[in-house]
């Protein structure tokens, strides 16, 4: 017996961060919560990320148990929490989960981290036939969306856009040397993004050498005073600059001689400062590419527009998966009737063969085997079409009616009693 699928949860769409953090479930407690919610016969999965906490449950009294769990987590009164909660059931809950796994419900459409979080939640869950099916399908839908659309390919922040541009110029960033100018948070964030893609933070230049040394130590690079930054342009591949200087830190006249000896090796300047640090004229030098904060924001806006466009394709994929889930759920209405019908037919066949045992005794082993086979084939052929029709009816939402009719016509309900 399978229960309804229920989802109770809250996310960035409905709840501010103050509320989301109250209902967030620490990773190490997710499994215990799922087990508690599932109880002896139910099923439960807890998906908790920085943007959402959702409880997927199946079994008796599932919705009430899930709401009670969220109330307990939040420590709020019911009337305080209720406006932030959404409740979805069966196909709607499945569609929601598929959209979540595909990154369509994320703050940044198509972000890739959520698929791993859904997988972790599933692995830590107390699953049975319903949640096992819906989560497996969600993971499949998430992978399919990423494989068949470009929704997750483009960067969604200025620092990741800078890293993506560096990859567009240099390809593999392993061995690419970065010169960071300015030791503030903005430079650090951009540098970290490049570092995570394999680049080497070779130098950190700053007006205060102590601050440069601190950042350089974290990245394993060399600290430089600001006036020595130009000297390293001959060796650097990417320059990330974000200082609070009111004037340009890098001027064309200083940079031109330094890049002349690079023999066509490209040099990417990422200027994240306002006011700008890098003289725009540097972008005109051969093999120099300059992106300031406006350029990067335009790239991000453009790629986000692309993500939204890809989102339409992704929506079609998850809708298809939701339809498959609906058909599977509907088929559950007729499966017991089909199983009973086949069992009844098999029972009659074996009983009739037993009755005829006296006459069949004279048959050879081969002939006996042929009779077995022919009678089994007759039963299968007779039941094939009703089985197919019942499954089709189930998909069209008439499954229960057909199942009842079959039970009545073949006297299956009397057997059940």
């Amino acid at each position, binding site marked *: 017996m399978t229960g309804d699928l229920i989802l109770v949860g809250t996310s960035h769409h409905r709840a501010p961060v103050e509320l989301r953090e109250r209902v967030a479930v620490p990773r190490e407690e997710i499994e215990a919560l799922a087990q508690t919610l599932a109880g002896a016969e139910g099923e439960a999965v807890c998906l908790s990320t920085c943007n959402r906490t959702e409880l997927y449950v199946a079994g008796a009294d599932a919705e009430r148990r899930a709401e009670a769990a969220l109330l307990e987590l939040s420590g709020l009164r019911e009337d305080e929490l209720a406006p932030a909660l959404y409740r979805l059931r069966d196909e709607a809950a499945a569609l929601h989960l598929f959209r979540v796994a595909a990154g369509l419900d994320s703050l940044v459409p198509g972000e890739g981290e959520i698929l791993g979080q859904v997988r972790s939640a599933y692995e830590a869950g107390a699953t049975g036939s319903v949640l096992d099916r819906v989560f497996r399908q969600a993971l499949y839908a998430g992978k399919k969306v990423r494989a068949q*659309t470009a929704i997750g390919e483009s960067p969604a922040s200025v620092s990741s856009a800078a890293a993506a541009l560096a990859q*567009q*110029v240099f*390809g593999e960033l392993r061995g690419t040397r970065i010169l960071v100018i300015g030791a503030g948070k903005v430079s650090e964030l951009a540098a970290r993004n490049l570092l995570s893609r394999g680049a080497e933070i070779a130098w950190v230049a700053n007006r205060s050498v102590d601050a440069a040394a601190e950042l350089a130590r974290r990245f394993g690079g060399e600290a430089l005073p600001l006036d020595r930054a130009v000297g390293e342009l001959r060796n650097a591949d990417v320059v990330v600059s974000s200082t609070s200087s009111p004037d340009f830190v890098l001027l064309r006249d200083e940079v031109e001689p330094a890049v002349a000896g690079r023999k*066509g*090796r490209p040099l990417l300047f990422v200027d994240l400062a306002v006011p700008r640090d890098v003289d725009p004229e540097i972008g005109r030098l*051969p093999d120099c590419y300059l992106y300031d904060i406006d*350029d990067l924001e335009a790239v991000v806006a453009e790629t986000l527009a692309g993500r939204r466009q890809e989102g339409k394709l992704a929506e079609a994929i998850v809708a298809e998966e939701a339809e498959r889930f609906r058909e599977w759920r509907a088929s559950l209405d007729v499966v017991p009737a089909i199983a009973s019908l086949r069992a009844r037919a098999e029972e009659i066949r074996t009983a009739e063969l037993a009755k005829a045992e006296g006459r069949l005794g004279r048959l050879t082993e081969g002939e006996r085997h042929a009779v077995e086979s022919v009678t089994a084939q007759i039963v299968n052929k007779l039941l094939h079409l009703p089985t197919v029709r019942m499954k089709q009816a189930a998909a069209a939402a008439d499954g229960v009616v057909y199942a009842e009719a079959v039970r009545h016509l073949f006297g299956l309900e009397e057997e059940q009693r």
Partner: protein
Amino acid sequence: MVELLFWPALIAYGEAAVAFVGASRRPALAGRLGTWGIRIGWLAQTALLAAQAARADGFPWASWAGSLNLFVWLVVSGYLIWGCRARYRLLGLGVAPLAFALLALARVGGGTGIGSESHYSNLFLVLHVGLVLAAFAGFTLAAGLAGLYLWQERRLKSRSASVLRTSVPSLATLDELGGRLIAVALPALTLGIGVGFLRLRSNGGGIDALMAVTIVTWLVYGAFLVLRYGAGWRGRRAAYLALVGFALVLAVRLGLPVTHFS
């Protein structure tokens, strides 16, 4: 039989060309359709070439149109080595229409049927025509990569907001791949020209205009390799030089029917 194999190849290359055009709107689906079109076209054309080889008495691609047929196959073969990756689909936008147009042209010239017997020896034709065509196929692909490099480089330089929307290999990859293709193709051209000269010497003939242009082509690509690996030429300058070399390749291909097959 040979006729039957020509049409699937042409249709598949045509389908790939249309699909690659559509890849700007639906990159995933159209890109896959394009890639499969190229693959199926290549398989059909491979079967076509095999059937031609089996039924011909000698080297079946000795005519201008026949050599065009073989040239298309070599270009597509080279492309398929790495072109099936999503990032190279824009190159497919150049290769698929080129394959479609040149294969159609080869058919119009009678190069997709059973080849006529040539008065040249098979060994000479295999070495001379085969090697020169293989080198030209490499130069063609290198020119495609150079074109793609210049297009993407211009977009990066102009700080186009859509620079990351189209999936293209990095500048470094395009530059490196183009250089390697030329480094492989030039020795093939050298050998092909060498075989041609040996035959010219034994038969006692003079150098015609086409041979002169071929030698200039060889010099340009030779200079490319010297400048690239000796003087560190990279990027735009290398791409422009690859395109200059390709212009000479085109001149040789177009001049072929006037000189060698007249």
